[in-house]
Protein backbone atom coordinates (compact mmCIF):
# COMPACT_ATOMS: atom_id res chain seq x y z
CA UNK A 1 0.00 0.00 0.00
CA UNK A 2 2.80 2.39 0.90
CA UNK A 3 4.38 1.61 -2.43
CA UNK A 4 1.21 2.60 -4.29
CA UNK A 5 1.02 5.89 -2.39
CA UNK A 6 4.65 6.40 -3.36
CA UNK A 7 4.37 5.18 -6.95
CA UNK A 8 7.16 6.99 -8.81
CA UNK A 9 5.51 6.82 -12.20
CA UNK A 10 2.31 8.41 -10.84
CA UNK A 11 4.32 11.11 -9.08
CA UNK A 12 6.14 11.92 -12.31
CA UNK A 13 2.92 12.09 -14.33
CA UNK A 14 0.93 14.14 -11.80
CA UNK A 15 3.66 16.48 -10.55
CA UNK A 16 6.02 16.57 -13.52
CA UNK A 17 4.18 19.03 -15.80
CA UNK A 18 3.56 21.55 -13.00
CA UNK A 19 7.16 21.30 -11.86
CA UNK A 20 8.50 21.83 -15.38
CA UNK A 21 6.32 24.90 -16.00
CA UNK A 22 7.11 26.31 -12.56
CA UNK A 23 10.84 25.80 -13.08
CA UNK A 24 10.86 27.39 -16.53
CA UNK A 25 8.61 30.34 -15.73
CA UNK A 26 9.64 31.09 -12.14
CA UNK A 27 12.85 29.44 -10.94
CA UNK A 28 15.03 29.88 -14.03
CA UNK A 29 13.97 33.53 -14.56
CA UNK A 30 14.64 34.39 -10.89
CA UNK A 31 18.20 33.03 -11.13
CA UNK A 32 18.62 34.60 -14.58
CA UNK A 33 17.39 37.96 -13.30
CA UNK A 34 19.88 37.71 -10.46
CA UNK A 35 22.55 37.19 -13.11
CA UNK A 36 21.42 40.39 -14.86
CA UNK A 37 22.35 42.40 -11.78
CA UNK A 38 26.04 41.96 -12.65
CA UNK A 39 25.77 43.30 -16.21
CA UNK A 40 24.57 46.41 -17.97
CA UNK A 41 22.86 46.76 -21.32
CA UNK A 42 19.92 44.97 -22.94
CA UNK A 43 19.27 42.03 -25.28
CA UNK A 44 19.24 44.19 -28.42
CA UNK A 45 22.50 46.09 -27.84
CA UNK A 46 24.26 43.32 -25.96
CA UNK A 47 25.47 43.08 -22.36
CA UNK A 48 28.69 44.20 -20.71
CA UNK A 49 29.97 42.83 -17.42
CA UNK A 50 29.52 45.52 -14.82
CA UNK A 51 30.71 43.85 -11.62
CA UNK A 52 29.01 45.35 -8.59
CA UNK A 53 28.46 48.77 -10.15
CA UNK A 54 24.68 48.27 -10.33
CA UNK A 55 24.61 47.78 -6.57
CA UNK A 56 26.72 50.84 -5.78
CA UNK A 57 24.51 52.83 -8.17
CA UNK A 58 21.43 51.51 -6.35
CA UNK A 59 22.76 52.70 -3.02
CA UNK A 60 23.56 56.20 -4.31
CA UNK A 61 20.64 56.75 -6.70
CA UNK A 62 18.39 59.58 -5.43
CA UNK A 63 15.57 58.27 -7.64
CA UNK A 64 15.75 54.91 -5.88
CA UNK A 65 15.68 56.67 -2.52
CA UNK A 66 12.60 58.62 -3.61
CA UNK A 67 10.90 55.48 -4.99
CA UNK A 68 11.73 53.50 -1.85
CA UNK A 69 10.42 56.31 0.31
CA UNK A 70 7.22 56.50 -1.73
CA UNK A 71 6.75 52.73 -1.52
CA UNK A 72 7.22 52.69 2.26
CA UNK A 73 5.05 55.77 2.81
CA UNK A 74 2.33 54.27 0.64
CA UNK A 75 2.59 50.86 2.31
CA UNK A 76 2.39 52.29 5.85
CA UNK A 77 -0.51 54.66 5.15
CA UNK A 78 -2.42 52.11 3.09
CA UNK A 79 -1.94 49.36 5.66
CA UNK A 80 -3.21 51.56 8.47
CA UNK A 81 -6.11 52.76 6.32
CA UNK A 82 -7.10 49.34 5.02
CA UNK A 83 -6.92 47.62 8.39
CA UNK A 84 -8.51 50.38 10.50
CA UNK A 85 -11.36 51.08 8.08
CA UNK A 86 -11.72 47.37 7.28
CA UNK A 87 -11.94 46.58 11.00
CA UNK A 88 -14.50 49.30 11.58
CA UNK A 89 -16.50 47.96 8.66
CA UNK A 90 -16.29 44.41 10.05
CA UNK A 91 -17.47 45.56 13.50
CA UNK A 92 -20.35 47.33 11.77
CA UNK A 93 -21.27 44.13 9.91
CA UNK A 94 -21.07 41.89 12.96
CA UNK A 95 -22.48 44.01 15.77
CA UNK A 96 -24.79 46.49 14.06
CA UNK A 97 -26.12 44.89 10.89
CA UNK A 98 -25.72 41.33 12.18
CA UNK A 99 -27.50 38.81 10.00
CA UNK A 100 -28.81 41.35 7.52
CA UNK A 101 -25.32 42.45 6.48
CA UNK A 102 -25.04 40.26 3.36
CA UNK A 103 -26.35 42.84 0.88
CA UNK A 104 -24.17 45.65 2.24
CA UNK A 105 -21.13 43.37 2.31
CA UNK A 106 -21.76 42.34 -1.29
CA UNK A 107 -22.13 45.91 -2.54
CA UNK A 108 -19.09 47.24 -0.68
CA UNK A 109 -16.99 44.33 -1.94
CA UNK A 110 -17.73 44.90 -5.64
CA UNK A 111 -14.92 47.44 -6.40
CA UNK A 112 -12.40 44.77 -5.36
CA UNK A 113 -13.02 42.79 -8.55
CA UNK A 114 -13.20 45.74 -10.95
CA UNK A 115 -10.13 46.04 -13.23
CA UNK A 116 -7.68 48.57 -11.79
CA UNK A 117 -7.33 50.62 -14.95
CA UNK A 118 -11.09 51.19 -15.09
CA UNK A 119 -11.08 52.38 -11.47
CA UNK A 120 -8.06 54.64 -12.08
CA UNK A 121 -9.64 56.28 -15.13
CA UNK A 122 -12.86 56.77 -13.17
CA UNK A 123 -10.91 58.49 -10.38
CA UNK A 124 -9.07 60.69 -12.90
CA UNK A 125 -12.49 62.00 -13.89
CA UNK A 126 -13.85 62.24 -10.34
CA UNK A 127 -10.87 64.36 -9.25
CA UNK A 128 -10.51 66.19 -12.54
CA UNK A 129 -9.84 69.94 -12.52
CA UNK A 130 -9.34 70.76 -16.21
CA UNK A 131 -10.89 71.40 -18.69
CA UNK A 132 -13.79 71.18 -16.26
CA UNK A 133 -14.21 70.11 -12.64
CA UNK A 134 -14.98 66.58 -11.61
CA UNK A 135 -17.51 65.79 -8.92
CA UNK A 136 -15.09 66.37 -6.02
CA UNK A 137 -14.23 69.91 -7.06
CA UNK A 138 -17.88 70.64 -7.79
CA UNK A 139 -18.68 69.59 -4.23
CA UNK A 140 -15.89 71.73 -2.79
CA UNK A 141 -17.07 74.79 -4.74
CA UNK A 142 -20.66 74.22 -3.68
CA UNK A 143 -19.80 74.22 0.02
CA UNK A 144 -17.76 77.39 -0.48
CA UNK A 145 -14.24 75.97 -0.55
CA UNK A 146 -11.54 76.44 -3.18
CA UNK A 147 -11.19 74.01 -6.01
CA UNK A 148 -8.02 71.93 -6.00
CA UNK A 149 -5.78 70.86 -8.87
CA UNK A 150 -5.76 67.33 -7.48
CA UNK A 151 -3.47 65.57 -9.93
CA UNK A 152 -1.29 68.64 -10.47
CA UNK A 153 0.87 68.43 -7.36
CA UNK A 154 2.67 65.55 -5.69
CA UNK A 155 0.94 65.79 -2.31
CA UNK A 156 -2.62 66.02 -3.57
CA UNK A 157 -2.00 63.33 -6.21
CA UNK A 158 -0.77 61.07 -3.39
CA UNK A 159 -4.01 61.73 -1.52
CA UNK A 160 -6.01 60.72 -4.60
CA UNK A 161 -3.98 57.50 -4.97
CA UNK A 162 -4.60 56.59 -1.33
CA UNK A 163 -8.31 57.47 -1.44
CA UNK A 164 -8.76 55.44 -4.61
CA UNK A 165 -6.89 52.38 -3.39
CA UNK A 166 -8.71 52.44 -0.05
CA UNK A 167 -12.03 52.71 -1.88
CA UNK A 168 -11.03 49.83 -4.09
CA UNK A 169 -9.83 47.46 -1.38
CA UNK A 170 -11.70 48.24 1.82
CA UNK A 171 -14.60 45.89 1.05
CA UNK A 172 -12.05 43.11 0.89
CA UNK A 173 -10.55 43.86 4.31
CA UNK A 174 -14.04 44.29 5.72
CA UNK A 175 -14.90 40.72 4.66
CA UNK A 176 -11.52 39.30 5.71
CA UNK A 177 -11.79 40.68 9.24
CA UNK A 178 -15.54 39.94 9.36
CA UNK A 179 -14.71 36.26 8.78
CA UNK A 180 -12.37 36.43 11.78
CA UNK A 181 -14.88 38.21 14.01
CA UNK A 182 -17.75 35.76 13.44
CA UNK A 183 -15.39 32.99 14.54
CA UNK A 184 -15.47 34.43 18.06
CA UNK A 185 -17.84 32.09 19.92
CA UNK A 186 -21.19 33.70 20.73
CA UNK A 187 -21.23 32.43 24.30
CA UNK A 188 -18.02 34.28 25.17
CA UNK A 189 -19.59 37.57 24.11
CA UNK A 190 -22.88 36.61 25.73
CA UNK A 191 -21.27 35.79 29.08
CA UNK A 192 -19.28 39.03 28.96
CA UNK A 193 -22.57 40.85 28.44
CA UNK A 194 -24.06 39.07 31.43
CA UNK A 195 -21.04 40.16 33.45
CA UNK A 196 -21.97 43.71 32.51
CA UNK A 197 -19.56 44.48 29.67
CA UNK A 198 -21.04 47.01 27.24
CA UNK A 199 -19.94 48.93 24.16
CA UNK A 200 -16.39 50.13 24.59
CA UNK A 201 -15.38 47.81 27.42
CA UNK A 202 -16.84 44.81 25.61
CA UNK A 203 -14.82 45.75 22.55
CA UNK A 204 -11.65 46.63 24.46
CA UNK A 205 -11.56 43.57 26.73
CA UNK A 206 -13.20 40.81 24.70
CA UNK A 207 -13.52 41.49 20.98
CA UNK A 208 -10.17 43.18 20.32
CA UNK A 209 -7.98 40.59 22.09
CA UNK A 210 -9.83 37.71 20.46
CA UNK A 211 -9.50 39.22 16.99
CA UNK A 212 -5.77 39.94 17.24
CA UNK A 213 -4.73 36.95 15.08
CA UNK A 214 -6.93 37.95 12.14
CA UNK A 215 -5.86 41.58 12.62
CA UNK A 216 -2.23 40.55 12.42
CA UNK A 217 -2.75 38.50 9.26
CA UNK A 218 -4.62 41.42 7.69
CA UNK A 219 -1.75 43.78 8.47
CA UNK A 220 0.81 41.45 6.95
CA UNK A 221 -1.35 40.69 3.94
CA UNK A 222 -1.85 44.41 3.41
CA UNK A 223 1.88 45.22 3.59
CA UNK A 224 2.58 42.35 1.22
CA UNK A 225 0.15 43.74 -1.35
CA UNK A 226 0.95 47.41 -0.97
CA UNK A 227 4.74 47.22 -1.37
CA UNK A 228 4.06 45.73 -4.82
CA UNK A 229 1.76 48.60 -5.85
CA UNK A 230 1.95 49.11 -9.60
CA UNK A 231 -1.29 49.10 -11.62
CA UNK A 232 -3.21 51.78 -9.81
CA UNK A 233 -0.32 54.27 -9.72
CA UNK A 234 0.61 53.62 -13.35
CA UNK A 235 -2.95 54.09 -14.56
CA UNK A 236 -3.88 57.03 -12.31
CA UNK A 237 -0.85 59.33 -12.45
CA UNK A 238 1.82 57.33 -14.30
CA UNK A 239 4.05 58.07 -11.32
CA UNK A 240 3.55 61.81 -11.60
CA UNK A 241 3.33 64.66 -11.60
CA UNK A 242 6.99 64.50 -12.59
CA UNK A 243 8.32 61.52 -10.70
CA UNK A 244 6.87 62.52 -7.33
CA UNK A 245 4.72 59.41 -6.90
CA UNK A 246 6.82 56.67 -8.43
CA UNK A 247 6.98 53.37 -6.53
CA UNK A 248 9.92 50.96 -6.89
CA UNK A 249 7.91 48.68 -9.16
CA UNK A 250 7.26 51.46 -11.66
CA UNK A 251 10.82 52.78 -11.45
CA UNK A 252 12.08 49.28 -12.21
CA UNK A 253 9.72 49.05 -15.19
CA UNK A 254 10.89 52.42 -16.58
CA UNK A 255 14.56 51.61 -16.06
CA UNK A 256 14.24 48.37 -17.98
CA UNK A 257 11.93 49.39 -20.80
CA UNK A 258 12.09 53.19 -21.21
CA UNK A 259 15.87 53.42 -20.58
CA UNK A 260 16.63 49.88 -21.78
CA UNK A 261 18.89 49.11 -18.83
CA UNK A 262 18.14 45.49 -17.94
CA UNK A 263 21.02 45.18 -15.50
CA UNK A 264 19.96 48.06 -13.32
CA UNK A 265 16.27 47.17 -13.69
CA UNK A 266 17.02 43.66 -12.42
CA UNK A 267 18.91 45.14 -9.47
CA UNK A 268 15.87 47.20 -8.46
CA UNK A 269 13.70 44.09 -8.90
CA UNK A 270 16.05 42.23 -6.57
CA UNK A 271 15.66 44.94 -3.92
CA UNK A 272 11.89 44.58 -4.26
CA UNK A 273 12.09 40.80 -3.97
CA UNK A 274 14.18 41.04 -0.81
CA UNK A 275 11.57 43.37 0.69
CA UNK A 276 8.82 40.86 -0.16
CA UNK A 277 10.93 38.07 1.29
CA UNK A 278 11.28 39.88 4.62
CA UNK A 279 7.51 40.41 4.81
CA UNK A 280 6.93 36.74 3.98
CA UNK A 281 9.18 35.67 6.86
CA UNK A 282 6.88 37.63 9.15
CA UNK A 283 3.91 35.80 7.63
CA UNK A 284 5.44 32.44 8.46
CA UNK A 285 6.28 33.51 12.01
CA UNK A 286 2.79 34.85 12.66
CA UNK A 287 1.22 31.77 11.06
CA UNK A 288 3.13 29.55 13.46
CA UNK A 289 1.97 31.64 16.38
CA UNK A 290 -1.62 31.11 15.20
CA UNK A 291 -1.25 27.38 15.55
CA UNK A 292 0.41 27.38 18.96
CA UNK A 293 -2.14 29.66 20.66
Amino acid at each position, binding site marked *: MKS*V*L*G*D*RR*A*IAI*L*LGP*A*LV*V*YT*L*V*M*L*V*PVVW*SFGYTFVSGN*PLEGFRFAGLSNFSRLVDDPDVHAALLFTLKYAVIMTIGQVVIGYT*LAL*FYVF*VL*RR*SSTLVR*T*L*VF*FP*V*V*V*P*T*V*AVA*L*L*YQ*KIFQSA*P*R*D*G*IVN*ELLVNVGLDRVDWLGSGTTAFIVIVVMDI*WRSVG*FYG*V*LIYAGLIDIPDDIIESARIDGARGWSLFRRIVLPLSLPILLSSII*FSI*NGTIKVF*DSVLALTNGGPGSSNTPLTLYM*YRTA*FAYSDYGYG*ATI*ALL*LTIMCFI*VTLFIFRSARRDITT
Partner: protein
Amino acid sequence: MLLDTEAQAPAPGRAPARPGRRPGAARRSVRRLLVALAIAALLVVEVYPLFWMFINSLKSSNEFLNTPSWSLPVDYRWDNYTAAWETGQLATTIRNSVVATLPSLFFIIVLGVAAGFTLEVMVWKGRNTVLLTILAGIMVPGQMILLPLFTIYFELHLTGSLWPLIITYTGHGLPLTVFMMATYFRAIPREIFEASTIDGAGMIRSFRSIGFPMVRNAVLTVALVQFFLIWNDLLFAITFANRRDLNTIQAGLLNFSGQYGSLDYGPLFAAICITIGGILVLYLALNQRIIQGLAAGAVKG
Protein backbone atom coordinates in the same frame (compact mmCIF):
# COMPACT_ATOMS: atom_id res chain seq x y z
CA MET B 1 -29.71 44.07 30.07
CA LEU B 2 -33.12 42.85 29.06
CA LEU B 3 -33.20 45.34 26.21
CA ASP B 4 -29.80 44.27 25.04
CA THR B 5 -30.68 40.62 24.82
CA GLU B 6 -33.80 41.56 22.95
CA ALA B 7 -31.75 43.41 20.38
CA GLN B 8 -29.89 40.13 19.96
CA ALA B 9 -33.06 38.46 18.69
CA PRO B 10 -33.01 36.99 15.17
CA ALA B 11 -33.63 39.19 12.13
CA PRO B 12 -32.36 42.35 13.82
CA GLY B 13 -32.70 45.71 12.16
CA ARG B 14 -36.36 44.84 11.78
CA ALA B 15 -36.94 44.39 15.49
CA PRO B 16 -40.65 44.88 16.08
CA ALA B 17 -41.41 48.38 17.30
CA ARG B 18 -43.57 48.54 20.42
CA PRO B 19 -44.30 52.22 20.78
CA GLY B 20 -44.78 53.57 24.27
CA ARG B 21 -44.23 50.29 26.03
CA ARG B 22 -40.72 50.96 27.29
CA PRO B 23 -38.53 54.03 27.70
CA GLY B 24 -35.95 52.24 25.52
CA ALA B 25 -38.17 52.43 22.46
CA ALA B 26 -37.22 56.01 21.58
CA ARG B 27 -33.54 55.28 22.05
CA ARG B 28 -33.90 52.29 19.79
CA SER B 29 -35.43 54.25 16.97
CA VAL B 30 -32.67 56.87 17.25
CA ARG B 31 -30.23 54.01 16.98
CA ARG B 32 -32.03 52.64 13.94
CA LEU B 33 -31.85 56.08 12.30
CA LEU B 34 -28.11 56.25 12.93
CA VAL B 35 -27.63 52.80 11.45
CA ALA B 36 -29.66 53.77 8.39
CA LEU B 37 -27.52 56.89 7.98
CA ALA B 38 -24.32 54.88 8.27
CA ILE B 39 -25.50 52.41 5.64
CA ALA B 40 -26.55 55.25 3.35
CA ALA B 41 -23.17 56.98 3.71
CA LEU B 42 -21.35 53.74 3.01
CA LEU B 43 -23.40 53.05 -0.10
CA VAL B 44 -23.02 56.61 -1.41
CA VAL B 45 -19.25 56.37 -1.07
CA GLU B 46 -18.95 52.91 -2.59
CA VAL B 47 -21.70 52.89 -5.21
CA TYR B 48 -22.31 56.51 -6.25
CA PRO B 49 -19.01 56.83 -8.22
CA LEU B 50 -20.18 53.95 -10.42
CA PHE B 51 -23.56 55.57 -10.98
CA TRP B 52 -21.87 58.93 -11.68
CA MET B 53 -19.75 57.29 -14.33
CA PHE B 54 -22.79 55.67 -15.91
CA ILE B 55 -24.79 58.90 -16.28
CA ASN B 56 -21.75 60.65 -17.75
CA SER B 57 -21.25 57.87 -20.25
CA LEU B 58 -24.55 58.94 -21.81
CA LYS B 59 -23.68 62.61 -22.32
CA SER B 60 -22.21 64.35 -25.34
CA SER B 61 -18.79 65.97 -24.82
CA ASN B 62 -20.47 69.36 -25.07
CA GLU B 63 -22.96 68.53 -22.35
CA PHE B 64 -20.24 67.04 -20.14
CA LEU B 65 -18.20 70.27 -20.41
CA ASN B 66 -21.08 72.66 -19.79
CA THR B 67 -23.44 71.15 -17.23
CA PRO B 68 -22.86 69.96 -13.66
CA SER B 69 -21.46 66.44 -13.77
CA TRP B 70 -24.09 65.08 -11.39
CA SER B 71 -27.05 66.15 -13.52
CA LEU B 72 -28.82 63.47 -15.52
CA PRO B 73 -28.16 63.46 -19.29
CA VAL B 74 -30.45 65.70 -21.39
CA ASP B 75 -30.52 63.37 -24.34
CA TYR B 76 -29.29 59.86 -23.84
CA ARG B 77 -26.34 59.33 -26.17
CA TRP B 78 -26.22 55.56 -26.41
CA ASP B 79 -24.05 56.00 -29.49
CA ASN B 80 -21.17 56.70 -27.08
CA TYR B 81 -21.17 52.97 -26.53
CA THR B 82 -20.85 52.15 -30.23
CA ALA B 83 -18.11 54.79 -30.52
CA ALA B 84 -16.28 53.28 -27.54
CA TRP B 85 -16.72 49.80 -28.96
CA GLU B 86 -15.17 50.83 -32.29
CA THR B 87 -12.42 53.36 -31.41
CA GLY B 88 -11.49 51.46 -28.28
CA GLN B 89 -11.35 48.22 -30.30
CA LEU B 90 -13.17 46.58 -27.42
CA ALA B 91 -14.07 43.52 -29.48
CA THR B 92 -10.34 42.88 -29.95
CA THR B 93 -9.30 43.57 -26.36
CA ILE B 94 -12.12 41.47 -24.92
CA ARG B 95 -11.22 38.62 -27.28
CA ASN B 96 -7.55 38.91 -26.29
CA SER B 97 -8.42 38.87 -22.58
CA VAL B 98 -10.55 35.76 -23.05
CA VAL B 99 -7.94 34.04 -25.22
CA ALA B 100 -5.23 34.77 -22.64
CA THR B 101 -7.30 33.97 -19.55
CA LEU B 102 -9.20 30.76 -20.34
CA PRO B 103 -6.25 28.56 -21.43
CA SER B 104 -4.19 29.88 -18.49
CA LEU B 105 -6.99 28.99 -16.10
CA PHE B 106 -7.30 25.53 -17.64
CA PHE B 107 -3.56 24.82 -17.32
CA ILE B 108 -3.35 26.27 -13.80
CA ILE B 109 -6.21 24.09 -12.60
CA VAL B 110 -5.09 20.85 -14.26
CA LEU B 111 -1.43 21.21 -13.30
CA GLY B 112 -2.06 22.80 -9.90
CA VAL B 113 -4.64 20.31 -8.63
CA ALA B 114 -2.55 17.32 -9.72
CA ALA B 115 0.55 18.83 -8.09
CA GLY B 116 -1.34 19.63 -4.89
CA PHE B 117 -2.57 16.03 -4.77
CA THR B 118 0.91 14.59 -5.28
CA LEU B 119 2.45 16.87 -2.68
CA GLU B 120 -0.19 16.33 -0.02
CA VAL B 121 -1.68 12.85 -0.44
CA MET B 122 1.18 10.81 -1.81
CA VAL B 123 4.09 9.73 0.35
CA TRP B 124 7.60 10.18 -0.98
CA LYS B 125 11.00 11.45 0.01
CA GLY B 126 11.68 15.11 -0.77
CA ARG B 127 8.09 16.23 -1.10
CA ASN B 128 8.48 18.85 1.63
CA THR B 129 11.44 20.37 -0.20
CA VAL B 130 9.46 20.53 -3.44
CA LEU B 131 6.44 21.98 -1.66
CA LEU B 132 8.54 24.70 -0.01
CA THR B 133 10.26 25.51 -3.30
CA ILE B 134 6.90 26.01 -4.99
CA LEU B 135 5.50 27.99 -2.06
CA ALA B 136 8.49 30.34 -2.21
CA GLY B 137 7.12 31.38 -5.60
CA ILE B 138 4.15 33.08 -3.91
CA MET B 139 6.34 35.91 -2.67
CA VAL B 140 8.27 36.53 -5.90
CA PRO B 141 7.03 39.81 -7.43
CA GLY B 142 6.34 39.84 -11.17
CA GLN B 143 9.18 42.30 -11.71
CA MET B 144 11.74 39.66 -10.72
CA ILE B 145 10.85 37.33 -13.62
CA LEU B 146 9.88 40.02 -16.14
CA LEU B 147 13.18 40.67 -17.90
CA PRO B 148 14.40 37.08 -18.43
CA LEU B 149 10.95 36.04 -19.65
CA PHE B 150 10.89 38.95 -22.07
CA THR B 151 14.27 37.87 -23.43
CA ILE B 152 13.15 34.25 -23.72
CA TYR B 153 9.90 35.08 -25.53
CA PHE B 154 11.80 37.44 -27.82
CA GLU B 155 14.38 34.79 -28.71
CA LEU B 156 11.66 32.20 -29.30
CA HIS B 157 9.78 34.66 -31.57
CA LEU B 158 6.66 34.38 -29.42
CA THR B 159 6.25 38.14 -28.92
CA GLY B 160 3.70 38.51 -31.73
CA SER B 161 1.20 36.18 -30.04
CA LEU B 162 -0.65 35.76 -26.75
CA TRP B 163 1.43 32.69 -25.83
CA PRO B 164 3.79 34.71 -23.59
CA LEU B 165 0.80 35.77 -21.48
CA ILE B 166 -0.66 32.27 -21.28
CA ILE B 167 2.68 30.73 -20.30
CA THR B 168 3.49 33.44 -17.76
CA TYR B 169 0.05 33.42 -16.14
CA THR B 170 0.18 29.64 -15.82
CA GLY B 171 3.61 29.56 -14.18
CA HIS B 172 2.99 32.59 -12.00
CA GLY B 173 -0.41 31.32 -10.84
CA LEU B 174 0.79 27.84 -9.90
CA PRO B 175 2.34 28.50 -6.46
CA LEU B 176 -0.83 29.92 -4.89
CA THR B 177 -2.96 27.24 -6.59
CA VAL B 178 -0.74 24.39 -5.39
CA PHE B 179 -0.72 25.84 -1.90
CA MET B 180 -4.51 26.22 -1.75
CA MET B 181 -5.11 22.78 -3.23
CA ALA B 182 -2.64 21.14 -0.84
CA THR B 183 -4.58 22.70 2.04
CA TYR B 184 -7.87 21.32 0.71
CA PHE B 185 -6.42 17.84 0.19
CA ARG B 186 -5.05 17.91 3.74
CA ALA B 187 -8.64 18.08 4.99
CA ILE B 188 -9.53 14.77 3.32
CA PRO B 189 -8.74 11.72 5.50
CA ARG B 190 -5.90 9.76 3.96
CA GLU B 191 -7.77 6.50 4.75
CA ILE B 192 -10.00 7.16 1.75
CA PHE B 193 -7.05 6.96 -0.61
CA GLU B 194 -5.54 4.02 1.27
CA ALA B 195 -8.83 2.16 0.89
CA SER B 196 -8.91 2.82 -2.83
CA THR B 197 -5.39 1.44 -3.22
CA ILE B 198 -6.42 -1.69 -1.33
CA ASP B 199 -9.21 -2.02 -3.88
CA GLY B 200 -6.49 -2.10 -6.47
CA ALA B 201 -6.67 1.43 -7.90
CA GLY B 202 -3.43 3.06 -8.98
CA MET B 203 -2.71 6.61 -7.81
CA ILE B 204 -3.64 8.19 -11.13
CA ARG B 205 -6.96 6.39 -11.02
CA SER B 206 -7.44 7.48 -7.37
CA PHE B 207 -6.73 11.05 -8.35
CA ARG B 208 -9.11 11.03 -11.32
CA SER B 209 -12.03 9.25 -9.72
CA ILE B 210 -11.69 10.18 -6.02
CA GLY B 211 -9.27 13.06 -5.41
CA PHE B 212 -10.44 15.47 -8.09
CA PRO B 213 -14.20 14.97 -7.57
CA MET B 214 -13.79 15.48 -3.80
CA VAL B 215 -12.23 18.91 -4.20
CA ARG B 216 -14.50 20.07 -7.03
CA ASN B 217 -15.88 22.93 -4.92
CA ALA B 218 -12.41 24.06 -3.96
CA VAL B 219 -11.45 24.01 -7.64
CA LEU B 220 -14.16 26.56 -8.40
CA THR B 221 -12.87 28.77 -5.58
CA VAL B 222 -9.30 28.56 -6.82
CA ALA B 223 -10.42 29.19 -10.40
CA LEU B 224 -12.27 32.36 -9.35
CA VAL B 225 -9.25 33.68 -7.45
CA GLN B 226 -6.98 33.02 -10.41
CA PHE B 227 -9.51 34.43 -12.88
CA PHE B 228 -9.47 37.82 -11.20
CA LEU B 229 -5.69 37.83 -10.77
CA ILE B 230 -5.23 37.15 -14.50
CA TRP B 231 -8.11 39.22 -15.85
CA ASN B 232 -6.98 42.27 -13.85
CA ASP B 233 -3.25 41.87 -14.49
CA LEU B 234 -1.53 44.88 -15.99
CA LEU B 235 2.23 44.32 -15.58
CA PHE B 236 2.57 41.23 -17.80
CA ALA B 237 -0.11 42.48 -20.20
CA ILE B 238 1.68 45.71 -21.07
CA THR B 239 5.10 44.02 -21.19
CA PHE B 240 4.41 40.95 -23.29
CA ALA B 241 1.41 42.12 -25.34
CA ASN B 242 1.91 45.82 -25.88
CA ARG B 243 1.08 45.77 -29.59
CA ARG B 244 -2.33 47.38 -30.12
CA ASP B 245 -3.83 44.22 -31.64
CA LEU B 246 -2.63 42.08 -28.72
CA ASN B 247 -3.84 44.40 -25.92
CA THR B 248 -5.97 42.87 -23.20
CA ILE B 249 -8.86 44.83 -21.72
CA GLN B 250 -6.71 46.54 -19.09
CA ALA B 251 -3.90 47.51 -21.48
CA GLY B 252 -6.36 48.51 -24.19
CA LEU B 253 -8.25 50.79 -21.82
CA LEU B 254 -5.00 52.45 -20.78
CA ASN B 255 -4.00 53.09 -24.40
CA PHE B 256 -7.50 54.23 -25.32
CA SER B 257 -7.45 56.76 -22.49
CA GLY B 258 -4.00 57.98 -23.53
CA GLN B 259 -5.11 58.56 -27.12
CA TYR B 260 -8.68 59.81 -26.82
CA GLY B 261 -9.35 60.27 -23.10
CA SER B 262 -8.96 64.06 -23.06
CA LEU B 263 -11.33 64.60 -26.00
CA ASP B 264 -14.02 61.95 -26.17
CA TYR B 265 -15.36 61.91 -22.64
CA GLY B 266 -18.55 60.04 -23.41
CA PRO B 267 -16.87 57.13 -25.23
CA LEU B 268 -14.17 56.86 -22.54
CA PHE B 269 -16.82 56.70 -19.80
CA ALA B 270 -18.69 54.20 -21.95
CA ALA B 271 -15.58 52.04 -22.38
CA ILE B 272 -15.05 51.99 -18.60
CA CYS B 273 -18.74 51.13 -18.13
CA ILE B 274 -18.48 48.21 -20.54
CA THR B 275 -15.37 46.94 -18.74
CA ILE B 276 -17.02 47.17 -15.34
CA GLY B 277 -20.36 45.89 -16.65
CA GLY B 278 -18.87 42.60 -17.81
CA ILE B 279 -17.38 41.98 -14.38
CA LEU B 280 -20.64 43.07 -12.74
CA VAL B 281 -22.59 40.33 -14.56
CA LEU B 282 -20.16 37.69 -13.31
CA TYR B 283 -20.28 39.21 -9.83
CA LEU B 284 -24.08 39.21 -9.69
CA ALA B 285 -24.10 35.52 -10.56
CA LEU B 286 -21.36 34.34 -8.22
CA ASN B 287 -20.79 37.04 -5.61
CA GLN B 288 -20.84 34.89 -2.47
CA ARG B 289 -18.44 32.36 -4.03
CA ILE B 290 -16.16 35.17 -5.21
CA ILE B 291 -16.10 36.88 -1.81
CA GLN B 292 -15.40 33.65 0.07
CA GLY B 293 -12.84 32.55 -2.49
CA LEU B 294 -10.83 35.75 -2.45
CA ALA B 295 -10.88 35.90 1.34
CA ALA B 296 -9.76 32.25 1.54
CA GLY B 297 -7.00 32.89 -1.00
CA ALA B 298 -5.75 35.78 1.12
CA VAL B 299 -5.70 33.91 4.39
CA LYS B 300 -3.93 30.96 2.85
CA GLY B 301 -1.59 33.05 0.68
